[in-house]
């Protein structure tokens, strides 16, 4: 378990910290995610994608639940994550990180902002539309295009 933690804790902690903005709360999410794996190692099935990506998604969802003070909404046993880069190794992760940051930097500001509001603030598309004063359809399109832009970076 220690080895698993050493390999993936930075991904889990970083995303939780970015969402929650507070180290204590991020540590709680970190603890919760790894304890879930410890208590029930069968909860992750390798057919659901690579473990690093799966942990990142679970951590983000748990952090958003915490941010919005709601009960966990995602049944983690059903989460399937399909992603190309293997996030297990530091080298692969660093390379992927550079690509993602570069892709985000290249996005139009409004698209990046919509994506970050949905991802890191857990806002619904209607909340984003209300906040930005943009039509719902535009927000939806921007979020989808943003996710596709990230995917495209790893397909080339």
């Amino acid at each position, binding site marked *: 378990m220690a080895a698993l933690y050493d390999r993936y*804790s930075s991904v889990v902690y970083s995303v939780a910290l970015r969402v929650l903005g507070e180290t204590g709360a991020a540590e709680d999410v*970190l603890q919760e995610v790894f304890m879930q794996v410890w*208590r029930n190692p069968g909860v*992750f099935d390798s*057919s659901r*994608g690579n473990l690093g990506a799966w942990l990142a998604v679970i951590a983000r969802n748990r952090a958003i639940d915490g941010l919005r003070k709601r009960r966990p909404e995602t049944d983690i046993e059903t989460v399937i*994550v399909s992603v190309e880069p293997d996030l297990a190794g530091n080298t692969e992760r660093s390379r992927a990180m550079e690509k993602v940051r570069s892709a985000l930097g290249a996005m139009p500001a409004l698209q990046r902002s919509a994506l970050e509001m949905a991802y890191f603030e857990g806002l*619904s598309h*209607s909340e984003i539309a209300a906040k930005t004063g943009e039509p719902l359809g535009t927000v939806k399109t921007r979020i989808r295009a943003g996710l596709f832009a990230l995917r495209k970076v790893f397909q080339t």
Partner: protein
Amino acid sequence: MSVHEQFAEDLALHALGSLEGNDLAALEQHLAECASCCRELEQLRGDMALMALSAAGPNPPRRARRRLLDAITLEPRRPARVALRRPLWAAAGWVCAAALAAITVLLWRDNAALVQEGRREISELRSLASQKEVELAEAQRIVETLTASNAAHFTLTSVKAHPQPQGKAIYVRDRASLIFLASNLRKLPPQKAYELWLIPTSGAPLPAGVFKPDAHGSATVINPPLPAGVEAKAFAMTIEPEQGSSTPTMPIVMQGAGE
């Protein structure tokens, strides 16, 4: 595009957990019937995982690691100090249990064919365990200890020339890994337990696990907490109060030096 166009944008929102109300209900109904949209949802969740990478920042503080490991120690899934054979297997799941069975065969039967067979079994078990990474890590540690080229082997026999009780300790100093298997152990009085001791080349004996044999006189100690890097001159076993002792109580009932 592989997804149905009318749901394409809603899929992205659903992956983010941002879809609500009627839109969510309609999409979930569609997902129940549409494999290609399910696959697209998996892809979008993968894209979400990539998004997490943009958040990469400081590593968690050291206390978080300690907190997790402390919590794990208190969890019932894996005994913190000593695992008797039956409870260990029950707790660690059938994969580890089967791995230990194969390992036990390797240990007790010094037979090349069986070794080959055992390795094949371990390989198959590893393949199965790939879906359970945590169990696999534990099983791999055991296998690595058994097969490490620098592993020191210790055979413990009765000091009273009674040949039946036997213990095998396999110890890898660098990793502080220890596997101890014992058989034909005498039944203990109530409130008593066996305690294994690592006898270092210098200094006092170090406690290496308290255990009670099962109904067949067998017991197993897997990776008790030991400081790393201690060179073992021998291993020994004593009878102690069931909570264990910090120093051995004479007499030594079994002992063995490195082979």
